[in-house]
């Protein structure tokens, strides 16, 4: 089924990729992707993280990212898989310990439909970013939506993985302690 945005489509299709199936647990979450430009080509880097669904009254647990997959945009050829555990970006204990819970306060009052709508709006901005059609107003909206939807427990890890990107869009001093 075709999704509402190109990025959504990619995030659905990537799960059917044999590389993904071999390396990423089916219950894992896909994090906010990061567009990258290198040598005139555009890539999309997708972080994956552990995700344990809510059971009963228990919250959804989210774990630190354990891998990134980078795709050439728009033909979606995988150019890199990085096992963050192998890279020892954080400790073994940290990998296996919940980083926090979902949803975070900024979005906790949203209905599922409202959340999905906001997510689609944000992913539309990703489309604009990837096809170079994003204007200043769009960038402002992108920043606002990303800041609101970003899972705070994952942000420190994303910041370490993609420091320039997150220092630009969600500067450290913009995040309340």
């Amino acid at each position, binding site marked *: 089924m075709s999704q509402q945005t190109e990025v*959504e489509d990619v*995030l*659905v299709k990537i*799960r059917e990729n044999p590389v993904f*199936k*071999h390396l*990423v*647990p*089916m*219950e*894992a979450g*896909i*994090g906010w992707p990061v*567009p*990258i*430009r*290198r040598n*005139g080509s*555009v890539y999309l880097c997708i972080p994956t*993280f*552990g*995700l*344990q*669904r*809510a*059971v009963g009254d228990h*919250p*959804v647990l989210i*774990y*630190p990212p*354990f891998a990134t997959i980078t795709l050439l945009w728009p033909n979606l050829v995988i150019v890199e898989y990085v096992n963050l*555990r192998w*890279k*020892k*970006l*954080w*400790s*073994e*204990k*940290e*990998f*296996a*310990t919940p980083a926090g819970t979902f*949803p975070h306060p900024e979005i*906790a009052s949203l*209905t*599922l439909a409202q*959340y*999905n709508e906001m997510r689609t709006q944000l992913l539309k901005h990703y489309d604009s*970013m990837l096809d*170079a059609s*994003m204007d200043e107003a769009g*960038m402002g909206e*992108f920043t606002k939506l990303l800041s609101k939807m970003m899972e705070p427990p994952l942000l420190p890890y994303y910041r*370490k*993985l*993609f*420091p*320039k*990107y997150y220092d630009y869009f969600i500067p450290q001093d913009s995040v309340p302690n």
Partner: protein
Amino acid sequence: MDDLPFIFHDTGMHTNMGEGPHASSFGITQHQTEYQSGEHHQGDAHQNRGAGLPDFVLRLLGPAGIHFGEDKGWLNSNADIDLWHLQHHDDTCAIVSQQLVLESLTGHSVSENELMQEAYERGWYNPGGGTPAAHVGDLLQAHGIPIERGGGRSIKDLESQLDQGNKVIVAVNGNDIWYPHTLSIFDTILTDIGFMPGQPANHAVQVVSIDHSNASHPMVVLNDSGIFTGAGERVPLDIFEQAWATSNDFMVSTEKAQTI
């Protein structure tokens, strides 16, 4: 493409590699070993699986370590249900499902933690993540049990495997089977969501039988390690099919009944 204003040339990701705190230990983490003292001893359940059954049933079950392909149906199901236990970690549903099959077919007990460690060392399990679909069943193969694995299977395929005395593990969406009629609740409070689209299957369970005793309401009997009531959990067939479809009807089945 060169004019993309907001895409950064290099995220600096690789320049940071290795700067993080290094692992002080390898394998099972402190977080995980906290649960070890509470580990359920499968062997006890397995050894007692025939307790209380009539002699003729015990003869049919045979000595520990031998599984008869013919002991299908309720008998096979009940023996498997006796082996069920709750998973001791958030992300070991696929490992426990394989453990239940392994113990059922071999008669030998093996702990969840032992299998988790083995899967981790072989690259089939990601602590804090789980088991990739392509590796569900690898533990069985490693222990001498041939498997068949893939998507696009049907209920008929599944039932055929069970009828032959084979064991079956499937990937499902847990919430579809745990909360089949509570969509309205999840639509009003944001407690469960796939973050990104296309993330429906999130749980592995063993299918122990399909109960057609009520022809108009067939039930799928599961060993579901994810919930306290998962031993012989009964799920309406239509609900099961909905939950299974989220994995493109992914199924791992053992090949022929094994004698090990």
